[in-house]
Every structure is written in C-alpha cells, then in structure tokens.
C-alpha cells in the first residue's frame, strides 16, 4: 500500500488566475457592485388586498403616485397601478368601485431582492417592462419600491 501523500498531485487553486473585474465606467461599477438598496426605495405606499378599488384610487390621487404595493401580512401579493385602472377599471367603474383591490391588482409582480445588484432593477424595467420594481428581503418581506425616477437619480450620482 502506498501512502496517500505519495499519490497526490499538488493542489492547484482553480481561482488562482482569477482577475478581479475592471470597469471602464463608474456607473458600470455601481450597477455590478452596489446592491439595489443603494437606489432609493422608500417611501413606498402599500394597501391591504381587501381595500375597495375606489379607496385605492383615492390613495393614488391623494399621494400623487402611480403605483401601490399590495401586501398581506407584510408579504407582497400584488401591485395596483395606473395601468390597472386603465385596463380594468376606467370603463367599468360602477361595477368595480366596491370590489376589493385584489380582484383587479396585478398579482405576482416581478420583484428584486435587497441583496441583488442594482443592475437587477434595471433588468426588470428594461427587459420585463415594468416601471415599478418592488424590493423584498430574503424572507419575502416588503422593503420598498424602485421607480424609474429613482434609478435615474442613482445613475446621475454615479455619472460624476
């Protein structure tokens, strides 16, 4: 029997030639290395799934915002936005005004985790096509929302 050490080849670290990334642009570096929490995500407005549609619209008007997060016991279950009003409520207001917002919200929204890179928020906007990106933690608890205006401010700050 040979001793194990006689049969071993020298350990080679597979990452020994790893070069840390270099960036041509400060925005590029921020998109990769800074988490989405670097982008302003608060304040945000949320409502319960059982609030009346008319009351949800009132909240949007009074707060002068375009999107409400719908949360149930702290967990994100949907979003209710101007697009939902356009598509499902505007011409059907009398039938819809007293229904719970969960009937007309957009369920299962695309979101990002607070640990994701800030580039992920841009992905949701540019690839998935949603303007408002909810941010949740790893327990799916709601943390905030990122809007295009907030992303723009982030880009400006890193543009130098």
């Amino acid at each position, binding site marked *: 029997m040979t001793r194990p050490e006689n049969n071993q080849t020298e350990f080679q670290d597979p990452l020994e030639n790893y070069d840390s990334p270099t960036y*041509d*642009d*400060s*925005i*590029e570096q921020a*998109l*990769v290395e800074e988490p989405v929490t670097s982008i302003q995500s608060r304040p945000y407005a949320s409502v319960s799934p059982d609030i009346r549609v008319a009351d949800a*619209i*009132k909240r*949007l*008007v009074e707060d002068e915002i*375009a999107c409400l997060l719908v949360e149930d016991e702290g967990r994100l279950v949907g979003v209710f936005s*101007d*697009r939902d*009003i*356009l*598509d499902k*409520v*505007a*011409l059907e*207001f*009398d039938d819809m*005004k007293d229904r719970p917002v969960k009937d007309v919200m957009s369920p299962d929204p*695309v*979101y*990002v*985790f607070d*640990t*994701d*890179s800030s*580039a*992920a928020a*841009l*992905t*949701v*906007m*540019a*690839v*998935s*096509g949603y*303007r408002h990106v909810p941010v949740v933690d*790893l327990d799916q608890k709601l943390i905030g929302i990122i809007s*295009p*205006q907030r*992303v*723009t*401010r982030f*880009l*400006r700050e890193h*543009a*130098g």
Partner: protein
Amino acid sequence: MGLKENLERDTVEKLELRAAITLTAEQSIRDAIEAMRRGGLGCAIIVDDQRHPTGIFTEAMLRNAIFHSPECVDDQLSEHTAETFPWVVTSDPVETVLDAMEIKNHRFVVVVDESGAVVGLTGQKGLMEYVADHFSEEVMVQRVGAEAYPNHREGA
C-alpha cells in the same frame, strides 16, 4: 465611452421610439381608453390636422379624472388634456429625455420631427432600455423573479 458622454452625444433617434397613439381633441376619453388599451400604452397624444401635438392625455390624468367624476369617460378629451407637455426633436441629445424624467418627473416625452409633426413617443421605458443596452453585459444577465438562492446544494 461612458454613459454620460453617450447621453450628450447620442440623439433621441437612437432610442427605441414607440408608435404614438394620436387622437383629436374632439374625441372622447372613452375613445382614448380604448385606443390606449389596444396599444398597451399609457398615453395618447392630441394632434391637429398636420399631426402637430397640441396636448397629451395620460394614465395619471385618467386616474384623477375618474376619481373626481367617474362619468367623465364621455367627456371630450379637450376638457382633460394637458396643453403643456415635454417634447423633443429627433435630433436632440438623449440627455434631454433624462432631464425631463429626473427633474420634471415626466413619464412620457413626445418626439417630433423637424417640421414639428409627431413621429413617436419615448420616456422612462425608452431611457431604461437605452441604459440597459449600454450596460448589456451587466444588466441582461440578471436573475429576475426566481429564488434568491438555490434550494438544493450543488453537486452529487
């Protein structure tokens, strides 16, 4: 070249313009809602007979109009449109759109040609696509909507 330089150098033509929904001031809010639903777009542009923009009607205006008077859907658009709105010429720098978004918080920007006629629409979504395209290696590879981390450990 960095994003900042490109924003100053590239013109609005470089953005992915959306086909604008155009209506006349005499048409109703109902007409606008139906057209916006068909087009999947959040605004309609009011134009004159030479396609020059004279106003804009957006989802946000619809929300406010519905809240104050649900019967407004049969009103003429002229009663509810904004007559001042952001617009750019196709030869303007992309940075103009960025300013409209960030400083004035406009969601839509009307794009006109040198004669002033509407050629399309851009805004928040168009700008996000432009930025994403600029950083495609960083942005286009992101996981979206999946689990935050693997449920099963790697390997056998």
